[in-house]
């Protein structure tokens, strides 16, 4: 009897937990609740963001924006593909006003799928170079992420390095660390090769990489650590992962090399934002993106993660500024989206993991 009562108590507890969870669990994307909140925060307004950029880097930026403008930022994080699917499913009922993505390919796809609306803004046109925004003004780059070569300083001298293409040379056999094809960064890099050389030549290059028997590691941080440990001599990563590690440990025997400086320039990707097609707070949304492209916004948004500001007027963080100037592949980043499907298929054809 006693045991039964105890078990019943457990069950009752479970029931309570369950109902509590179901009631509180789903608080973000429900339309009616949002209406109330808008009414509450009437003086400054509100803007709702779906962000694929990571936890931790965003909150301080949004707080500062609110301090300056009185506009409150609410946000939900998700993976890019997830966010787009969500926007599609919600259609005109979406609570989201702004979509922040971590790869140009994702922004291109969102625009293509009709999820974003064009924004005419002199501020944005002034602050953001043309190749880092949508030709039809549906999305705008906010920071730059450079995907380039890193090398172990004890095993490689920078003179041996030159281009992404060169990593297909047999002398790099068993010396490469690469990110698997499931990562959009890899897809965009390969897309840039297709844009530069055409599909056939790009396939030859990627096949060369694969024939060099690279170690596939699904984490840029781990790639750098493996290069440091001598597991491979050379890796291809986003620059800010190296900046983070060097910031913590300046003695790490890994340095950055700007690829393709003698020809088209190094592969640059962006974090960017667009206003959703059905944004209810359009003005606030535009205001947020404009602020993010301003000096103050750029400082906070880029420095928190050692990214390069998109606004040429704004100096990069001292640590990455110390890496010097470099030539950037002038292609419009929208191309990475257009060629993404081709890039994935190409990698599958040549057995890139």
């Amino acid at each position, binding site marked *: *009897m006693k*045991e*039964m009562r105890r*078990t*019943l108590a*457990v*069950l009752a507890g*479970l*029931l309570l*937990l*369950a109902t*509590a*969870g*179901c009631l*509180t*669990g*789903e608080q*973000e*994307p*429900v*339309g009616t609740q949002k209406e109330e909140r808008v009414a509450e925060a009437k003086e400054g307004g509100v803007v709702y963001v*779906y962000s694929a950029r990571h*936890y*931790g880097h965003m909150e301080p930026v949004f707080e500062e924006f609110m301090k300056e403008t009185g506009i409150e930022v609410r946000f*939900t*994080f*998700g*993976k890019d*593909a*997830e*966010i*787009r*699917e*969500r926007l599609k*499913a*919600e259609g005109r*009922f979406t609570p989201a006003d702004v979509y922040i993505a971590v790869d140009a390919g994702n922004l291109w796809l969102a625009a293509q799928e009709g999820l974003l609306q064009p924004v005419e803004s002199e501020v944005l046109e002034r602050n953001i170079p043309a190749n880092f925004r949508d030709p039809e003004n549906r999305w705008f780059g906010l920071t730059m992420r450079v995907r380039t070569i890193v090398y172990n300083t004890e095993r490689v001298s920078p003179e041996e390095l030159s281009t992404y293409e060169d990593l297909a040379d047999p002398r790099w056999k068993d010396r490469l660390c690469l990110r*698997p094809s*499931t990562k959009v960064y890899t897809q965009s890099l390969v897309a840039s090769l297709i844009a530069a050389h055409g599909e056939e030549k790009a396939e030859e290059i990627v096949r060369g990489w694969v024939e060099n028997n690279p*170690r*596939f*590691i*699904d*984490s840029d*941080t*781990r790639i750098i*650590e*493996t290069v*440091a*440990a001598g*597991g491979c001599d050379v890796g291809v990563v986003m620059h800010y992962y190296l900046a983070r590690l060097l910031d913590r440990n300046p003695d790490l025997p890994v340095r950055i090399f700007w690829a393709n400086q003698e020809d088209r320039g190094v592969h640059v990707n962006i974090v960017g934002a667009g206003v959703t097609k059905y944004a209810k707070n359009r003005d606030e949304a535009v205001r947020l993106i404009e602020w993010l492209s301003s000096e103050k916004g750029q400082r906070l948004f880029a420095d928190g993660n050692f990214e390069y500001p998109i606004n040429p007027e704004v100096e990069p963080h001292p640590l990455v500024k110390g890496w010097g100037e470099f030539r950037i592949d002038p292609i419009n980043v929208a191309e990475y989206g257009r060629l993404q499907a081709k890039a*994935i*298929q190409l990698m*599958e*054809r040549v*057995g890139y*993991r």
Partner: protein
Amino acid sequence: MLRGAAGILPLFIFLLVALPVLKVLAEVAVPSLETWRSLGPLLPLMLRNTLLLLLGVGAGSFLLGVSLAWLTTAYRFPGSRYFEVLLILPLAVPTYVLGYVYMATFDYAGPFSTAARQLLGITLPEIRSGYGAVAVMSLVLYPYVYVMARAGFRQVSSSSIDVSRVMGYTGLETLIKVALPLSRPAVAAGMALVMMEALTDFATVRFFNFPTLSEGIIRVWYGRMNLEAAMELAGLLLLFALAVVSLEHRLRGRAQYFQTGGGMEKRPLRGVRGAAAAVFCASVLLLAFVLPVLQLTLWALEETAAPSASPEMYLQLLSRSLSLAAAAALVCVLIAIVLAGVLQLGTGRVVRRLARLSTMGYAVPGAVVGVGTLGVLSSFDHRLNSLLEGTLGFAPGLIATGTVVGLIYAYTVKFMTIAYSAVDSSLSRITPSIIGAARSLGARPLEVVRDIQAPMAVPGIAAGAVLVFVDVMKELPITLILRPFGYDTLAVWVWQMAAESLWGGAALPALTIVLAGIIPVAYIIRRGV
């Protein structure tokens, strides 16, 4: 009246539970060649890897599980009484947690490989490979075989063993020629569970660069939001699962071995052999449980110095995991009670069959359940919205796929089996004669319920609820496919952090999941291993 309802209810439950699986089956029945072509050379690779993983993990778990079970049932050696019990513990660790710990510690940049290079001058084999995946998964999954094999061995009568020893068979020969054949049904059941877990896992194989069908489903759904391709892959994966189930059926056959007399007597292992047995057991336990949990604890402690997520974040993940698990446990148990209750009233054969079939979800890999549910629910959501918008002029939004409703539905499909067998076994102990006896002693119907039926049924119901609860907390593929947007749980968090090499950030949530997993293990231990 009651009979009518009794017939319809199981039918309804069956339809509800079977719908996602039927949806996927329909997909295999009409394969889309174009979708397959779009997967390109990845498809044969995934098929090959899935098969290799099944064989590898099957063999690994068989060797570990059977040898450990035989040592601890047939022999006495230093520590054997403790090993007997402790060797079940790895069951508390989800495959993806052990996978991430091993990836972090044994890959090239990891501390073990670094130490091996610096101190011994040797390079450990690459852990990011099929071998790594097989080794790690065998280490967590062997307890299924271990528990079942022990149950089998203990029923082998001492006389069979004595005969074998009189025949001059060595211990190993006795195992292979007598004990193992006699416990075949039990071992086969354990192996089937291992293989289903291997089919379900997508995270470990992704960590180890060994894409299988489950990984492929997540890859095309989560990465490309291509539901069609995910469905096709789910269909193929379902075929693998069916093969495992029918193989188990075959192996088990109609065999039921009845043995008389008590179990075998334990013989002492002395000297070197005893020490070797103890060392073997200890190293499996260390590798599969003790060291990984220690490592997680260390990471979690380091993490407190510079946390990558706020305590509120952790609490939010925890409360989501707990409430999802509680809700699913509740739903599963309620349905199981209805199903078991109705069936005990006595119904026709067809209804009985259907009821049995509704509890087959456990054999269906998680990603299949997830994708199938999504397929069913998204068309439901869209139809409901257009219907309401057309008639009432408002659209309620995505009720099933946009909230936890779809998620809990899918959990129910997958885990109802567990609740059902627990509930059914406790209800079936309450025979009509017990109730008749109570009534004839003067108890009124309500008193019978209060004093006889409820006390006898509740422990089983509670056990079922706890088992479902823990399984849901560990669950990854279904959660990833169906969770509402932005709705991270502990399991999802572990996976995402580990994928980003943020070992510390994943540690505390992973430990929490392991801790929850110890509850059912303790339950098995209490009931006697």
